[in-house]
């Protein structure tokens, strides 16, 4: 029988990492995600699976270790929280440009600046629009339960290697610090060196019986660089075509739609319960992938509902993508709290009533 555990999102992520056959974790402590590295250290996976766990001297160093590990075709990861993820942006741009697969976890806290250690979702723009320099995208997964903190590790690696692209898990202090029931995924063995070479013939695994492999993001000739960019963009369009994921919650008969991800989606589900008790037909569209964004699903909903309400722990970031999708055909409202304050279900419902239902 599968074993049900009670653990924090951060802990579940760490357990799932070991079980996913991960080769290496490189991180730096920052609240509210330090349990990830602490749990990995307690698990001592280097004794069981041979997984490397290394505390780097900075987030900058950690992401560059991830770059190098990914360049070797290894399953590598890092985790951090907002200010630390800002430090990683240069490395992420290089990883995206060199088309390297890896997993990055951001357990968001409130900003800007050093900000607060309390939960936030204000890194949406940074996560889905770029963050580092140049035209690139990460695949962004937004867990909303502790179970998904575990499950998205495997999913993340699957997508990362399928597209040779960095995958970001965009979580927040609620999901990271909350304890819930979780069924941990089964153990997968780490790939052997032969399997790594077979799966990643491009990786720097040693020049044996082939030309030397080079991992770089440098192209001084503009024509070459443009061609690289065109290839990357084609990949992003392919990802948009194939990898959109979302959860529909009570949308079948809905007149109004909350659009929310992560912990905000949990709050919106609570708001739906309150709203339906009052006879208001509301549902939730929870984007699971923030890039690619469920634009088509929102367009389809816009043909049959009366309005949308984006609920976020930010000053209003994802709402811009909702508006782009709806394209003026239906009203789109926004309600958010900032600085580590979590919007309540009551506030979300009240905002829907005042802004959209009127």
């Amino acid at each position: 029988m599968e074993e049900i555990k009670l653990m924090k999102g951060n802990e579940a992520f760490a357990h799932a990492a070991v079980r996913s056959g991960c080769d290496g974790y490189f991180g730096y402590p920052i609240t509210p995600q330090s349990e990830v590295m602490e749990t990995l250290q307690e698990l001592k996976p280097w004794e069981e699976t041979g997984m490397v766990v290394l505390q780097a001297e900075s987030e900058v160093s950690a992401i560059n270790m991830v770059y190098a590990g990914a360049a070797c075709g290894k399953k590598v990861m890092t985790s951090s929280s907002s200010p630390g993820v800002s430090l990683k942006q240069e490395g992420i741009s290089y990883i995206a440009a060199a088309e390297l697969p890896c997993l990055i976890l951001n357990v968001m806290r409130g900003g800007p600046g050093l900000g607060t250690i309390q939960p936030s979702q204000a890194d949406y723009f940074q996560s889905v629009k770029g963050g580092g320099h140049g035209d690139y995208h990460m695949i962004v997964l937004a867990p909303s339960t502790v179970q998904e903190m575990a499950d998205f590790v495997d999913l993340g690696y699957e997508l990362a290697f399928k597209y040779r692209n960095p995958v970001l898990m965009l979580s927040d202090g609620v999901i990271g610090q909350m304890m819930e029931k979780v069924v941990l995924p089964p153990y997968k063995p780490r790939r052997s060196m032969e399997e790594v070479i077979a799966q990643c013939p491009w990786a720097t695994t040693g020049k044996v019986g082939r030309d030397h492999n080079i991992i770089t993001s440098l192209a001084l000739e503009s024509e070459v660089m443009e061609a690289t960019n065109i290839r990357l963009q084609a990949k992003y369009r392919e990802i948009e075509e194939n990898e959109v994921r979302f959860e529909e919650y009570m949308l079948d008969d809905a007149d109004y739609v909350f659009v929310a991800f992560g912990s905000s989606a949990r709050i919106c589900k609570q708001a739906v319960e309150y709203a339906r008790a009052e006879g208001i037909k509301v549902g939730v569209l929870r984007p699971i992938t923030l890039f690619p964004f469920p634009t088509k699903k929102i367009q389809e909903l816009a043909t049959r509902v009366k309005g949308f309400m984006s609920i976020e722990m930010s000053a209003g970031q994802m709402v811009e993508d909702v508006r782009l999708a709806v394209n003026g055909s239906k009203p789109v409202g926004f309600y958010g709290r900032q600085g580590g304050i979590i919007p309540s279900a009551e506030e979300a419902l009240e905002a829907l009533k005042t802004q959209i239902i009127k």
Partner: protein
Amino acid sequence: MKKEIIIAGFGGQGVLSMGKILAYAGLMQGKEVTWMPAYGPEQRGGTANVTVILSDDPIASPLLQKYDIVVVLNQPSMDKFESRVKPGGILIFDPNGMTREPERKDINVYRIPATDTAAALGQAKTFNMFVLGGLLKVDPVVELDKVMLGLKKSLPERHHKLLPANEAAMLKGGEIIEKL
């Protein structure tokens, strides 16, 4: 069944671990559970609280405005959370260090002199188990044997010799809680 509980007090009073034991016990009983701490640097001395939800169905929001059961262990927590007990709900407080009693009349208020009792019995470290015992007496949200299982789960093995003292504290807590 769905029970929405918040436990609030000073850091160091065992607020988070009390919530954890409840959550583990809920898990053992096959419930859906969430345990959400107000986390922060104030591990000792500051204020701490934890929201625990036990439910037969999947839990939407792990954070709430109103609660079925509110346990307050210091005055700032009473000031903050008294108004957030659902009408007809339960408020449990320890009078130690409090400057006033709860004022609401539309809720069930219980007093548990856990600090004083624990001190008198030389059991200050199991203070939070007195409170938990009191809570379970007035609303058995989880079964006592599941609590002991939960406690075993949340205590490191080197502390398992303390289990009997904790159980005794819990039973005593059920005796000393009184309705106002």
